[in-house]
């Protein structure tokens, strides 16, 4: 067991973790943040995407012990007081959500993109979302949603 301190959605937590524990399991099973999903376990589907120190990563391929001291943002952190972020609202307005299983990961990838590049082109959006598989939407309305937020940026 190793002791790690994480800042998850602006809340600091200290946990004793097994060296083989994955970040996705820490979030879902120990912190109850089940908004982060697991679809493949091998970093291909992106459903488990969270933002670690500003970077979108697959939380199924990160060991929690590697995150000591890290700041982690999950989908639950996007609307801390129930107030949806502009991106979340755009997802609803553009019909970017169908089954919703890929949605948290999509939101996290797009959030990381917009933080780094507030006005991405359509091609940049598609490239940034290429690591998040969606089987329902054909991606079009998701790209439209991110584009809408980008178009509003200063």
């Amino acid at each position, binding site marked *: 067991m190793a002791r790690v301190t994480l800042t998850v959605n602006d809340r600091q937590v200290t946990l004793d973790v097994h060296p083989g524990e*994955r970040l996705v399991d820490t979030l879902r099973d120990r912190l109850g943040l089940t908004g982060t999903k697991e679809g493949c376990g091998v970093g291909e589907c992106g459903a488990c995407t969270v933002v670690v120190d500003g970077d979108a990563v*697959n939380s199924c*391929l990160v060991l929690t012990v*590697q995150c000591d001291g890290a700041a982690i943002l999950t989908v639950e952190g996007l609307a801390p007081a129930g107030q949806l972020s502009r991106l979340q609202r755009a997802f609803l307005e553009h019909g970017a959500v169908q089954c919703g299983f890929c949605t948290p990961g999509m939101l996290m990838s797009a959030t990381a993109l917009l933080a780094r590049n507030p006005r991405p082109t359509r091609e940049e959006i598609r490239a940034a979302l*290429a690591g998040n598989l969606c089987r329902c939407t054909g991606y079009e309305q998701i790209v439209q949603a991110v584009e809408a937020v980008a178009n509003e940026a200063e």
Partner: protein
Amino acid sequence: MSIRMPIAEVYRTSSVDDALAFLAEHPGARPLAGGTDLLVELRTRWGGPLVGKPGGAQGADGGGGADLSPASLLDISGLPELRDIRADGRKLVIGACARVAEVASSPQVAAAAPTLAQAAGSVGSVQIRNRATLGGNIMNASPAADSLPALAVHEAVCVLRSQRGGERRLRLGELVTGPYCTCARPDELLVAVELEGGSGWRQSYMRLGRRQAMTIARLIVAVLMRFEGSTVADVRISAGAAFPSPRRIEPAERALLGAPFSRAAAREAGEAAAEEMVRVCGIRWSTRYKQPVLAALVERAVRQCAAKEGLDEWPE
């Protein structure tokens, strides 16, 4: 709920010297950087999939060793001294733990070795590039690794260090000996890669995958060319997913070197590259496809270099 990786210990190190000491004392330990290959392998080995016969009796699982004992890992991802990317005269020095995303966006890499920047940009997804490291891409030694052909044409030198043996500098082709095999000793750590940069190269990197993103390369071609007038003064050609280990394809280079550029010579270089692949690998299930396609891609990459010099047109 969890899928727990078969890991007995993750040693978080604070310095390269400390890491080398740990490796010297724990010969079975494996360095962990981004984990994007290693953790997938450990999950499969543990049998996380829980299908088929344990221990990979079906073959395709890569778990042929049936080694279910927990791994001991050395986490080097937090070492800032291994993440540096810097230009050192004509040399480009990239720390082994530089993330693939950092390599892809580094101005130094873009200036000295745009093929490598392009290669790094085509690795996996944003999420993978944010974790994966250049050193990991090399040490995993996949024949389809995106960075290896780019590193090969830049005559990359891999810097290994160990407590016992000090520093060892190996050319990429010496370090990577075959599919998923390197000659690094268990106590050695890859700390940096040195590339011969330099201006005046025309460069081309082509990657063919089944999908437009997030897919293992079917074939990769990297070409550097230097022209004097219309004459090919220097040329370096490498290919990925075509050879068991990274190398320059000399028969293809010979078809171009010292002669005026022509489309016929470009075609000849392509055919020579494909023949070399067949000579080295023999006839395989995929040869009927890969032989003509490698020839076409090498031809195309050479033409693209020539086009950048104003000697040809590509794309059509």
